[in-house]
């Protein structure tokens, strides 16, 4: 692996995304991408007693599914990077506790999916692992409970608010394999634009996305048109609009071939999801389902995947702190 520019890294070996899997909840099933997901679960509890147990089950089932789809045995997986939004990442650790795979719990808020794949690809490129499992999840109900209000509370959501996606997505990275390949990594810095409105995460994270995006292009000497498509994780409609605007201002116009997973996953008009989807599971399921499928079918050959996270919790918002954002990027080519 060699460093290029200020904070990007080029992998020296082929790191292939061997297989992906994703399982989503009922609202995602009603969205425009439903046909790309491996499984859609009708019951948000999925037969469990609590939201947290249900989310853990999403992680567990998705991890087992991706291993099954890849044709590997559990013992072939050398390590696992996983994360979620619930305190101390319990959805990941409880979901994966019975798998007996060396486990790294990571937190990058909604940027965790790309963070896990970024770390996993370093492990493979460095020769430390042959197969790495990366998993991420979020659950609308457990997230609402932890960050906002009880589900049954009769309040109104502002137009800038986003809807946490109920989904888990996972990938298996490997040295062998026929691609798609992870090529360049651009880990992001923490960028705080001073936004304090917890109901406008897209705007809070757009600054970090912009920073990582521009850094990636400066480090690699590429322009946005090098990629067939650029995807961000969950900036939603407002964040997407801001990123298009500001990337143009910075001399890297991404507008015409840029999409946001939070915008793609729901039908705003029919599903009343305001500014779009959010959560670790958003980019995890949209990549594992839709984007990976589009790369396998050669519809996209080169993409840049940028996952954005808001590094905040319920307490810091109440204490009047602003919301720092982060964005990690990986380029994937077939």
């Amino acid at each position, binding site marked *: 692996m060699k460093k290029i520019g200020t904070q990007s890294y080029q992998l020296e070996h082929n790191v292939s995304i061997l297989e992906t899997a994703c399982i989503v909840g009922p609202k995602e099933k009603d969205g425009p991408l439903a046909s790309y997901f491996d499984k859609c679960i009708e019951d948000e509890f999925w037969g469990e*007693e609590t939201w947290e147990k249900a989310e853990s089950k999403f992680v567990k089932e998705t991890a087992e599914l991706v291993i099954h789809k890849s044709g590997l045995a559990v013992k072939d997986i050398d390590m696992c990077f996983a994360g979620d939004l619930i305190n101390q990442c319990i959805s990941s650790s409880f979901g994966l506790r019975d798998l007996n795979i060396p486990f790294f719990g990571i937190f990058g808020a909604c940027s965790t999916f790309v963070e896990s794949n970024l770390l996993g690809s370093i492990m493979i490129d460095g020769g430390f692992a042959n197969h790495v499992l990366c998993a991420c999840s979020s659950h609308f109900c457990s997230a609402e409970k932890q960050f906002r209000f*009880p*589900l*049954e*509370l009769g309040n109104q959501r502002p137009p800038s608010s986003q809807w946490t996606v109920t989904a888990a997505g996972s990938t298996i990275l490997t040295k062998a394999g026929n691609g798609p390949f992870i090529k360049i990594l651009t880990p992001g810095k923490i960028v705080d*634009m*001073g936004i304090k409105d917890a109901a*406008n995460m897209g705007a809070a994270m757009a600054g970090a996305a912009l920073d990582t995006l521009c850094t990636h292009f400066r480090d690699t000497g590429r322009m946005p048109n090098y990629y067939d498509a650029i995807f961000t994780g969950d900036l939603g409609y407002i964040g997407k609009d*801001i990123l298009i605007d500001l990337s143009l201002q910075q001399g890297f116009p991404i507008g015409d071939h840029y999409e946001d997973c939070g915008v793609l996953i729901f039908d705003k008009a029919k599903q009343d999801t305001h500014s779009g989807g959010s959560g670790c599971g958003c980019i995890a399921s949209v990549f594992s389902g839709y984007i990976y499928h589009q790369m396998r079918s050669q519809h996209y050959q080169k993409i840049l995947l940028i996952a954005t996270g808001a590094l905040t919790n319920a307490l810091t918002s109440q204490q009047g702190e602003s919301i720092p954002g982060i964005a990690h990027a990986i380029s994937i080519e077939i």
Partner: protein
Amino acid sequence: MEKPNPLESNQAYQDYVDQKTPNSPILKNCFFAFCVGGFICSLGQVIFEYAQSRGVDETTCYTIVSVSLIFLSSFLTALNVFNRIGKFAGAGSLVPITGFANSIVSPAMEYKSEGYIMGVGAKMFTVAGPVLVYGISTSILVGMIALLFI
């Protein structure tokens, strides 16, 4: 005039974000709040008139109205209906006693998974707590003023 650069300062970014962020549909929200809030109050009045027509004294009638609306709101909360009403009614269903009942029943339901002591018992007032604290404090203050000066 030159367009301000949103990346110049946090304040410039905030101003820029404010422009990009759609406002809540205040007129529509007010209209629905007025209709639903009015309906709830009318319902209270109907219950009051009915109780009075059955020969119940006025003070008890007020109690019957409160108890009925609290029951109705709690019941609809449990059925996962009240939040749907609240979504478009906003302050219309939140401000009357129905909203108060909903704000106590909803955390009780949500935190049942943590048990009856640390879950339901401890978390039941997470939303309504501030209303109780400041509502009761204000009533004490007003009561003392009334006692001293009126």
